């Protein structure tokens, strides 16, 4: 076991982690731990753009952007945070440009902008061009640019170091972060990173669904690490299903395709979004479009022999425009479906895409231990966190924005904090939990296999807690997840070695997915209303009287060792905007 001592430790090296690292490295001795290599992070898969009211191509302002974000989130957004997001968006984009990001340009040489779902002129009048983009590889460019600047700043990376545990100690009766425990994939060695400040930026948890745009590695590691130590998770029932995933595979096809003029069609060739969203049509918010697609499918207007998908039609767009603006996604269609998007529509279905919920933080990125108390030294940013700027449904292009605005804020806040305090003493035997977990998995002779349990979990989640939910389906999920958690205790791995044991790694990841799936289902069961990405067929309306509040889920362990989930609620911060009926 090795012990390292840093001022600031960042867990995860995607957009939020590296944006934080650029700030934190300038101000404090920083280590960045990632279970991948930085450039493998899933920020790189984001396509369509990053929202900011630059007003380069038409009139726009941050207040309109704030409103769209609040409305897009079905009023569960904390409005103070959304205002910061929209205001700081402009500098966040300009900062990236100064770091070298190669945005597409207008004829004047300024950053070009395009339309995106839910972003509108003057509070919903018409779509507005707010998304700053680099073809359909904006996330790739952000990830590369941030990595380039990390190289420039000399950021210290620990690649293929998998963080498994958050160390918390009581200081004057207050739960305080002391550091993290990591597993080095190359050697199987355990490392303790003692740090004054820890920032989680480890991304999402989409891999508990089967059809998902998420990478295999998005297994909610950060959320699980803090949750197991008794810290809450906020709004986990809210998960976004992106309307246009490649049929059956789930690979993302950017909303930018519709921003460029692409149209969704059912088996009759009908542009069905006109029925559901007369103004914004195909550019309504994602939850609305995904539900509309499934409504078409359920009512028998889906495409293909099994009627289980619809089409994304780009055939009316000039090939030059597709080549210039959407080169990657058109190539995906050719590679994975053998379809030529110039001439044929692309079969798509909604795909599990983004966790709106996560580790609760305030606008400085400080993690909350309950509705109000900050955990000293603990920060989170990006998809792992819940600020909450996305509320019940995130707008497209607001996630690349989120990682830059709140990654930067968390990086500064953490480094400034670590400059003012000393290290907290490590708890006794800091690696105990992780060593126990690893040894148990390595030694287990149980007859359950990781792949079987994961498959069943993913199928259960797709079937029961996806776009449409009812009390019955959610209860089925809760029951099934409970059974899988029991079976997980009997899981064993075939690879017993220490070197690059990805068999063991996948077993640990599955444990995280199971914990978080249960939190999601239990949170969803209690929310007896429909709001944003959480749609209950048995409660089809939004209920502001009873549910205009954030869910806070805590893991509780009884005296006899039994685990349970306790739900509490946190008020939503409302400033300018009163909840209204949401129409697009």
């Amino acid at each position, binding site marked *: 076991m090795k012990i390292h001592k840093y001022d600031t430790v960042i867990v995860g090296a995607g957009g939020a982690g590296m944006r934080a690292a650029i700030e934190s490295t300038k101000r404090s001795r920083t280590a960045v731990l990632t279970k991948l290599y930085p450039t493998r*992070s899933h920020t790189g898969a984001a396509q369509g753009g990053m929202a900011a009211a630059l007003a380069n191509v038409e009139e726009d302002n941050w207040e309109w952007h704030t409103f769209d974000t609040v409305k897009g989130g079905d009023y569960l957004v904390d409005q103070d945070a959304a205002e910061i997001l929209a205001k700081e968006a402009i500098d966040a984009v*300009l900062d990236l440009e100064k*770091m070298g990001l190669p945005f597409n340009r207008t004829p004047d040489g300024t950053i070009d902008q395009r339309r995106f779902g839910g972003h509108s002129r003057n509070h919903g009048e018409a779509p507005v061009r707010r998304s700053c983009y680099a073809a359909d590889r904006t996330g790739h*460019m952000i990830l590369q640019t941030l990595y380039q600047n990390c*190289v420039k700043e000399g950021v210290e990376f620990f690649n293929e170091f998998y963080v498994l545990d958050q160390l918390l100690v009581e200081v004057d009766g207050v739960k305080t972060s002391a550091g993290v425990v990591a597993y080095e994939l190359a050697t199987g060695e355990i490392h303790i990173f003692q740090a004054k400040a820890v920032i989680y930026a480890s991304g999402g948890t989409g891999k508990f669904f089967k059809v998902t745009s998420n990478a295999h590695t998005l297994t909610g590691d950060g959320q699980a690490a803090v949750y197991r130590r008794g810290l809450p998770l906020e709004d986990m029932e809210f998960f976004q299903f992106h309307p246009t995933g490649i049929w059956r595979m789930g690979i993302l096809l950017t909303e930018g395709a519709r921003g460029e003029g692409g149209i969704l069609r059912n088996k009759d060739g009908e542009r069905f979004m006109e029925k559901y969203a007369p103004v914004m049509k195909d550019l309504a918010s994602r939850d609305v479009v995904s539900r509309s697609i499934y409504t078409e499918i359920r009512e028998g207007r889906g495409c293909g022999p099994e009627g289980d998908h619809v089409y994304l039609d780009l055939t009316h767009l000039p090939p030059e425009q597709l080549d210039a603006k959407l080169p990657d996604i058109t190539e995906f269609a050719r*590679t994975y479906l053998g379809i030529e998007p110039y001439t044929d529509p692309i079969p798509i279905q909604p795909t599990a895409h983004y966790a709106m919920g996560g580790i609760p933080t305030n606008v400085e990125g400080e993690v909350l231990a309950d509705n109000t108390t900050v955990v000293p030294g603990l920060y989170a940013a990006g998809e792992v966190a819940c600020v909450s700027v996305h509320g019940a449904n995130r707008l497209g292009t607001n996630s690349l924005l989120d990682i830059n605005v709140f990654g930067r804020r968390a990086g500064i806040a953490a480094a400034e904090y670590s400059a003012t305090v000393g290290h907290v003493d490590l708890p006794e035997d800091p690696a105990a939990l992780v060593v126990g977990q690893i040894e148990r998995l390595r030694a287990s002779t149980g007859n359950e296999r990781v*792949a079987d349990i994961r498959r069943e979990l993913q199928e259960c989640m797709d079937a029961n807690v996806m776009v449409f939910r009812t009390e019955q389906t959610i209860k089925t999920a809760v029951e099934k997840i409970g059974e899988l958690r029991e079976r997980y205790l009997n899981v064993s791995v075939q690879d017993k070695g220490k*070197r690059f044991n990805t068999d063991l790694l996948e077993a640990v990841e599955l444990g995280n997915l199971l914990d978080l799936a249960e939190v999601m289902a239990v949170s969803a069961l209690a929310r007896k209303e429909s709001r944003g990405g959480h749609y209950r067929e048995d409660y089809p309306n939004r209920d502001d009287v009873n549910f205009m509040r954030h869910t806070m889920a805590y893991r509780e362990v009884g005296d006899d060792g039994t685990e349970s989930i306790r739900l509490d609620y946190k008020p939503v911060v409302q400033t300018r905007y009163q909840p209204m009926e949401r129409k697009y």
Partner: protein
Amino acid sequence: MATPTLDKADAAGTPEPGFADSPYITATFRIRRFNPEVSGEAVWEDFQLEIDPKERVLDALHKIKWDHDGSLTFRRSCAHGICGSDAMRINGKNRLACKTLIKDINPAKPITVEPIKGLTVLKDLVVDMEPFFQAYRDVMPFLITKETNEPTRERLQSAEDRERFDDTTKCILCAACTSSCPVFWNDGQYFGPAAIVNAHRFIFDSRDDAGEQRLEILNDKDGVWRCRTTFNCTDACPRGIEVTKAIQEVKRALITRRY
């Protein structure tokens, strides 16, 4: 093949339901295995799978790992050609396992899967990427400007100037190009195509002021002049970057000092 083939042919489970006419075929994956915890020798091992040929090689590797042999080790993440984790040598050619469909690589014959060449193998298909990233860092892969005052708004760049380096911005640092280069195999000191591609991305960016410095770095004995224009790198690039052309443009810039 220099080493013996372990035959561990093992029929996989029944095809998944849901596909109309059964598209499944039987394919053999011949995988280069190496685990120094077990043996200092690398061996070939065969796995036979019932698989839909429209699936990716990565799907086949997952089937093997998840249903047959959990110790099979490889890197992967996004599974659609964006993250650059799973470059490997498939049927003797560098490709991303997640962008290679089984039907496109003649599954009638055994499909060979090996680690990329020229980098130390750590376990099975996992290689030491550090020398690769060191070469990348050595070309100063970040925008360097001489302005004393940063502009308050974005720097302006014409669409034409932006287009000049568009191709080389697509690089995902997967190492497929560098590890397909015969010069790199023979001499690991050579920067390799990927590092040159990333230098190109800045040399030809109108906003950058450090082109001269980067050109001097690449003028080194281990720099661009080692390139023998075999086009392996261009063939290998899963992003379709014209790697050889980029290297030629850097060479030309070194001669003319215009870029």
